[in-house]
């Protein structure tokens, strides 16, 4: 009998081919929303977020058998999701031959194009400000601000020291503040 609340049990069931698909389905259902919103805030459009999310879980399906369990399952999933987002953004930019500054405006345009976009609302301004951040700072801010991830776990996801992450978060917040005050 699988315990869907126990990540270790889910991984065990998957690895030992006991109830592989059932275990995997539980993993998807447990983490899909969290991962989706993390991806969506990075890539903005739903279609792109959906593609990236599916790619993430396909990678989990193939890679879970070799998961060393050095970190939590949730940390490992976030790591894959973040890498997939960055890879996706890079491939989009390559395809369109856009520079870094164009990439920001591209994503900002997508935010503005959203049917519910309201420039007067602070929460929308926040989204625009987030897209102005450098990629790494963007990820740090999103993980801390929205996912409330402790720095220790973030360090495992991004393979960066906690000190560097704290500094990165501080800079990100200051840049967002500056954008909101000036726009």
């Amino acid at each position, binding site marked *: 009998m699988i315990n869907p609340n126990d990540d270790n049990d889910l991984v065990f069931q998957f690895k030992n081919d006991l109830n592989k698909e059932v275990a*995997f389905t539980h993993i998807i259902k447990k983490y*899909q929303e969290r991962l*989706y919103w993390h991806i969506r805030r990075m890539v903005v459009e739903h279609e792109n977020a959906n593609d990236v999310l599916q790619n993430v879980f396909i990678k989990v399906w193939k890679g879970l058998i070799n998961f060393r369990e050095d970190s939590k399952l949730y940390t490992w999933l976030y790591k894959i999701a973040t890498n997939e987002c960055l890879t996706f953004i890079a491939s989009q930019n390559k395809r369109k031959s856009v520079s870094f500054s164009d990439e920001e405006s591209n994503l900002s345009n997508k935010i503005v194009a959203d049917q519910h976009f309201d420039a007067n609302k602070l929460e929308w301004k926040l*989204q625009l400000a987030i897209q102005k951040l450098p990629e790494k700072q963007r990820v740090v801010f999103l993980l801390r601000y929205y996912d409330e991830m402790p720095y220790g776990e973030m360090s495992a996801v991004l393979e960066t020291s906690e000190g560097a992450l704290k500094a990165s978060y501080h800079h990100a917040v200051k840049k967002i503040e500056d954008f*909101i005050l000036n726009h």
Partner: protein
Amino acid sequence: MNQNEKIQEELLIISEVVANIPKCNVFEVSEGYFSNASAEILIKCADSSVFETPETYFEQLPEIILDKIKNADSAENENLILSTQEKQHPYTIPNNYFETLPDNILQAVKGPAKVISISKNQIWIKLVAAVLVGLIGFVIIINLPKKQDEGISAIEKEAKKIILNKSFESEFEQIDEKEMANYLEENGHDVNAALVASLNEDEISLDNDELMYDEEAVDHYLTDLKTSPKFN
């Protein structure tokens, strides 16, 4: 304080403006998206594994290929790789290197020309002078402290004077050759042996063969060599 409160407090310290922004999701998703997502993903996972290879396929592949190579005709396979390679030196050498090499080696072997005195007399004189000075000096050193009060013999006085004045060359010229020859006949072992040892092949001429064949001199010299602390 829970995680949410900690993060909020941290944000407040950094920026009140950002801390006061309402935290909400501005993006939307279609209804039922998450309900169907897992099924769609499972289908895609199944599709992605249409073309599969055994788990350790790529790990074992190099070994399999190597075994096949070894099991095939060994002679052919040994030369398989070598025969496809052109025998080329990857290294370069200066122009005319081998043409000039013999001359360069000869020059290195010969070394710079040395000016060697070929005067036999000069060799004799220098060696004899060195031995005499050494002997006289030795005698003086041994006897000086004891006989200081008693007085030094005439010969020793003279020797001392020569050493102090560094005038043995001028004194030497005044010595009669016959007297010198007589002295050497009586005390010549060490001088002969030293001469033999000092001569190299170029300097040894037919005239000096008698030095080489003076067995007593050679033996005496070799004995000294063995007992010398320098060679032990």
